[in-house]
């Protein structure tokens, strides 16, 4: 079962693309821990400092647009990001994040209702986001059950279990 997610927010704007999440020159790095060192380097030089005590990214529309590089969600996950919340995601990034087990939740209006540094609790199964700082609740866009299962286990585990069941 997925742990509930609790942490402080790092906030970004619209259209954060995969080229800035992990610039191309780092794609030759195969070890996820090496990728993690360069996460968000293209947009935020201070990210590696911020992520030490803030584990939830909140962004605007079209987060993860651009290339299909799975290195983008991988770099965020290994940098310690627990969850990405955005108004909307680019579709390949959405699939990739779920497949590697990085919780990712779409929520209309989130970028207006949450500010940098605030503390959130996210419960993907219930589609619920609690803003602990402002003491408000937000409803996430629903995620189908099989996707929640993949998000909790990662696609690799999911596939293994499915093959065994067959």
């Amino acid at each position, binding site marked *: 079962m997925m742990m509930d997610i609790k942490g402080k927010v790092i906030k970004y704007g619209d259209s954060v693309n995969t080229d800035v999440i992990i610039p191309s020159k780092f794609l030759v790095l*195969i070890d996820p821990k090496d990728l993690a060192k360069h996460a968000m380097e293209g947009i935020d030089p201070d990210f590696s400092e911020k992520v030490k005590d803030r584990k939830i990214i909140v962004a605007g529309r*079209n987060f993860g647009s651009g290339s*299909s590089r799975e290195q983008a969600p991988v770099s965020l996950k290994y940098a310690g990001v627990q969850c990405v919340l955005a108004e909307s995601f680019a579709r390949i990034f959405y699939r990739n994040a779920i497949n590697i087990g990085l919780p990712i939740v779409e929520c209309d209006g989130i970028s207006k209702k949450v500010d940098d540094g605030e503390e959130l609790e996210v419960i993907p199964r219930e589609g619920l986001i609690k803003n602990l700082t402002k003491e408000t609740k937000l409803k996430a866009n629903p995620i189908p059950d099989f996707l929640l299962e993949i998000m909790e286990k990662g696609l690799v585990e999911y596939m293994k279990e499915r093959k065994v069941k067959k």
Partner: protein
Amino acid sequence: MTEMNIVEKIMARASGKKQVHPGDIIEAKIDKAMMNDITGPLAIEAFREMDGKKVWDKDRAIIVLDHLVPADSAQSANMHKILRDFAVEQDLKYFYDVGRGGVCHQMMMENHAKPGEMIVGADSHTCTYGAVGAFSTGIGSTDIAAVFVTGKLWFKIPKVINIVVKGKLNPPVAPKDLILYTIGQFKADGATYMGVRFAGEVIQNMSVDGRMTLCNMVVEMGAKNGIVEPDDKTAEYLKGRKLVPYEFVKGDADAEYDKTVEYNASKFEPMVACPPSVDNVKPISEIGKVEINQALLGSCTNGRLEDLRIAAGILKGKKVKKSVRALVIPASQDVYQAALREGLLETFVESGVLVCGPNCGPCYGGHLGLLAAGETCVSSTNRNFVGRMGSPKAMVYLASPATVAASAISGRITDPRHLEG
């Protein structure tokens, strides 16, 4: 039964259903799956972690080396080796090694994609193959690993936007200008999760090369796939590439679309996508004086014979301006060879262009022609994000092959209709 559009028809077929509706989740059988040297090594790791032993079909699992070709470092050589070893181990029929292939999407279009097929690729511009009436879309490394194991993948049936283009594209106004215009209208997330169908007289009169340019760039407005209904032009192309046998899948005449928009191409002028985003599109008459340091012709968007012919036609007997480096990168060995035979490469070389071997080149910032801080490039490629082609302080303007060639001569972004001398 309700009528279905071409995307729904293909997805229904692939999932063994009579009827599908937007929003339905299906599991589809995949006809062909492709990975490249950037997405492949991670995918193979995931394939092994999934306890994958054999790929589901060794004739349909395709690997192309193109992003860092030939290897520019020991690290990329290692990535190539991982894929080469895998191809040998799995006895893959199609492994495109250095010097025997080109850009992955060009390989898929030259040798594999057929109408009505479900094709996935671990690269975002996999949407290109809608040019022959296939459903094709980009996925990531773990997804492609799952496809290599099972030959299947889940999809949500997308809503489809129908773009009808009337009138006539007046050369040198090109398919690239049409798709840049479209992205400027829809913006970077205007078609997120959706399919995009292109129709109308301009599309009917357009070559498959041109249709590839359109379908290639739909991902820049967030779309899942781009598609053109197959017709005589498609049949001619497939015959020429010996892509037989095939079967056309078409949408029903009364099929529904999420929305239909109409453009009249007759009054279009050349378009330019200005930094720092692909949707920052302006007619060329509105961009003012932009000096350039580099002009780049190539990529899966515009590195085909048709593109090279147009550029060579403009460059013939002229010289690239001294302040500009010009690069031409044919999209495949076949394009390279055809351009060689037609004398296009000679024209380029005589003009002072560096002709590179087929690969992705600097398109995504890997190697071969990156930019320094403060430099500007006009490029026939598909992305101009910050840092995409080298320094985050460099600027990339996207334009058609004709605009790139005209700009190489004058040293600033130039309307190919108004090139002096």
